[in-house]
């Protein structure tokens, strides 16, 4: 029974061992990728079969419930999508590709364990497992032009990451000092009694910092543009989407500590949300590198997600979960186009999209749907997500915040639209047509469908998220 509870993680762990042995030999990248995909799908199946189970493992430090299992499945599906859209790993040397997949899988193991962790040290270990694997993935890119830009990004990433970790650890030490426990279950009631003391607010705020770093929210955002630019397209696709899902899961767990009356935390998160939205959107307006632009847009989206957290209510958390799931899909759809369009894995500037609607109508449509969904245009999921976030934030009395979010929607539309504009308007172009494989076609169409269906029929996913959130409050 216990084995079944831990099955998704076990499969991933065993799989990573297999990959480790492969890396010691002379296997090709394609083989390693196929194995990783099989492991991922096996783990998804295991996750689905243990979907409605509950239980706790490892001296109650590790909890299996609907909340954790649904996040695990989302994370694993995200990984599967990343593996499929980055089928070629164009910009990574073939001899290190097996290692690439190994560390990618390790990072996912960290994330998967993170959403189940309910004890501070376990959280810490899981988070670092995922982060350090990511730090290694970033420099795994061919050196272009001898600038070693990928190394620079990796160093930046690791330094910012270490600082964020340090802040989080410091916060955890406060929490332990105040309450004498590291278990979230015991922390919750004890922190509630201390909610008036500044120490408790500081502790929660600093622990939040570690996950705001993962989510790339202001003021822990400064790694984003350089890492997005320096890492290969496939790596960026992963960094930009999957870890953010886990970050939201943990942010909900931590903010739940401040529920229902953590006024200090609410004020702090409100300010961070406004700063994230404005900073991300305003800076994104002037970007020309596509990944950098998406990086800044990601900072803005982190701000939107915080709208749900400031409510400190179940319905608000549900809106955040719904939004981040939508963001995962629409972001991956955008990166799918980037990965396929980039011939040798080089970075794309916005103008490279020019004439895409003639060169590959399907990819152009995918880009249109992805961008307009991020901009929050109905009928796509980005609209429904923003709508429910704004409704919940307004319900909790944050009218200013909602108006700021609305204004930001109007600002953001400009750069998303400029991408669509260039995709759909080109005059003379001598670039060849793009031929895309069957997998890409299927992936594109299914992503477009998911973005639309999640947008117009959100009922099921909201119900699921509501049940999941109830298990942790």
């Amino acid at each position, binding site marked *: 029974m216990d084995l079944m509870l831990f099955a998704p993680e076990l499969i991933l762990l065993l799989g990573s061992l297999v990959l480790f042995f492969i890396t010691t030999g002379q296997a090709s990248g394609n083989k390693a990728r196929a194995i990783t995909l099989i492991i991922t799908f096996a783990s998804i199946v295991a996750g689905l079969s243990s979907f409605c189970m509950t239980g706790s493992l490892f001296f109650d430090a590790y909890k299996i419930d609907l909340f954790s299992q649904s996040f695990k499945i989302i994370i694993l599906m995200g990984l599967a999508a990343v593996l499929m859209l980055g089928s070629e790993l164009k910009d990574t040397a073939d001899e290190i590709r097996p290692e690439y997949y190994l560390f990618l899988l390790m990072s996912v193991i960290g994330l998967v364990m993170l959403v189940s962790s309910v004890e501070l040290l376990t959280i810490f270990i899981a988070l670092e497992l995922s982060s350090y694997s990511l730090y290694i993935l970033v420099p795994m890119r061919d050196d272009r032009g001898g600038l070693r830009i990928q190394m620079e990004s990796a160093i930046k990433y690791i330094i910012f990451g270490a600082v964020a970790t340090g802040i989080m650890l410091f916060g955890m030490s406060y929490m332990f000092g105040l309450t004498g426990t590291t278990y979230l279950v015991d922390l919750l009631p004890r922190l509630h009694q201390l909610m008036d003391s500044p120490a408790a607010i500081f502790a929660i705020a600093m622990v939040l910092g570690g996950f705001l770093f993962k989510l790339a929210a202001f003021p822990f955002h400064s790694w984003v543009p350089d890492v997005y630019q320096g890492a290969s397209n496939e790596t960026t696709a992963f960094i930009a989407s999957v870890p953010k899902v886990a970050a939201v899961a943990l942010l909900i767990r931590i903010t739940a500590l401040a529920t229902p009356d953590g006024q200090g935390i609410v004020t702090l998160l409100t300010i961070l949300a406004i700063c994230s939205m404005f900073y991300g959107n305003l800076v994104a307006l002037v970007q020309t590198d596509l990944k950098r632009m998406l990086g800044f847009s990601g900072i803005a989206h982190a701000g939107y997600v915080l709208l749900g957290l400031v409510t400190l209510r179940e*319905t608000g958390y549900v809106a955040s979960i719904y939004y981040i799931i939508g963001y995962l899909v629409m972001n991956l759809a955008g990166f799918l186009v980037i990965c396929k369009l980039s011939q040798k894995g080089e970075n794309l500037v916005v103008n490279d999209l020019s004439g895409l*609607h003639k060169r590959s*109508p399907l990819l152009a449509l995918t880009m*249109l749907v992805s961008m*307009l969904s991020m901009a929050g*245009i*109905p*009928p796509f999921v980005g*609209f429904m997500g923003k*709508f*429910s976030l*704004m*409704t919940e934030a*307004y*319900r909790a009395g944050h*009218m200013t915040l*909602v*108006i700021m979010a*609305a*204004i930001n*929607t*109007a600002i953001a*539309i*400009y750069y998303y*639209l*400029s991408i*669509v*504009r260039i995709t*759909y*308007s080109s005059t003379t172009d001598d670039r060849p047509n793009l031929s895309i494989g069957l997998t890409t076609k299927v992936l594109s169409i299914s992503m477009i469908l998911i973005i639309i269906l999640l947008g*117009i029929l*959100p*009922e099921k996913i*909201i*119900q699921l998220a*509501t049940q999941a959130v109830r298990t942790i409050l």
Partner: protein
Amino acid sequence: MEFLILNDMGFPILSALLFLPLVGALVVLCLPGENLAKYTTLLITIAIAGLSLPLYTKFDSTTAKYQFGEHHSWISSLNINYTLGVDGISLLLILMTTLIMPLCVLGSWRYIDKRVKEFMICLLLMEASMLGVFMSLDFVLFYILWEAMLIPMYLLILVWGGPRKIYAATKFFLYTLAGSVLLLVAIIALYLTQGTFSIPDLMGQQYSMTFQILVFIAFFLAFAIKVPMFPFHTWLPAAHVEAPTAGSVILASILLKMGTYGFLRFCLPITPDATIYFMPYILILSVVGILYGGFTALAQQDMKKLIAYSSVGHMGFVTLGIFVLNQSGIEGAILQMINHGVTTGALFFCVGMVYERNHSRELDKAAGLGKYMPIYVTFLTFFSLSSLAFPGTNSFVGEFMILVGSFTDHKIISAFAIPGAVLAAAYMFRMLQRVVWGRPKNPDQSGMSDLNIREIVTLSPLLYFVFWIGLSPEPFLKVLHVSVTHLISQVGVATSNVAAVSKLIIP
């Protein structure tokens, strides 16, 4: 649900109207070949037009309730429903939309020569969302369709537009979207006060004055940009000029009406006190729009721009009629919305037909066509006369009713609208004179062929409606009457005491 008369026709006619274009778009997507796409789209739009006719014949004009209603739960956690219904205010707009769309397909038959299939899909998506906007009685459904419409319209301008299409498309999208983001906030605010997104349920509730004013401003920004009213009109000429013919026609005939429809459906019944508070300023803006549009149209060399600016003036008449808040004014305004859709749509088709022949919209290059294109100038003359509200044509009835309404309550401000009618005659006759006769030295037009059967078929239904409404408006007015009376009673709760206030500001 007492506001809704559920549909008893045996099949959900409104849903059918909403989804048939979407299904059609899917079908066209799967078809091979461009000609097949054209014929299929034409067939689908005609089928939709035919399907919409029972709306008129079965419409019960003795009740102000929403008819042919459909109500299904959609997103229960937020109490969002899929509610459709038609009343006197939306009925004619829906019928006009279904009438215009097949003509748009016919009008683009030769004009669109690349990516025909995608063009037709965009047209069908537009039709679905436009019909949905007029039918939906749930705010979220309304907003989704209202915004979703931007995407196909944006693509229509961006992909098939003229030389400055990028500028025009971007401006159109940014303007309209920026206007509607606060509309969303207002919708959320209304939802949280009443716990429902149902539009009829939100009407006639007691809201505080501050709340009403804030909601009204959010509404007003969204709708005034769409109309467009005077200071927000700058996207219109750009979009009209650059859009392909069908795009211009859809923009002028249907899209602009959504703004005025929004005023009637939301501003007046949901925020009546704020409406009365802001009424004087909006009347002034309307009159400024009438005069500004007229003067600017007088100076245009580009025929599409001329008609675009004339739209600003005509829509000024419509908002004038709406905000005088009396029976004659509002009925005239609704009728004028239909008239403007018919007449201006036809004029854009006319300009497009010349453009197909000589690839220019310049007035000077189209000079002296009368000798070589007698059928064309006949049509053009009638539509131009209709546009300047010549007695016997449709616009005369509408403008006359609006002016009757506005003279009843606001004599001086109405007096300023009269020169607008004169200006309309001036710019229309200027265009007509140039196109039909021209100057002593005209460009050589001998190569121009007259209208073919397809083009005559495109214009004839519109001409028919010009005279039908002009000579016998009763069938159109009778469906409006009860709904408008009901609307005025919704606003009228406070009319008596606040009308006095408005008299202080404008006589």
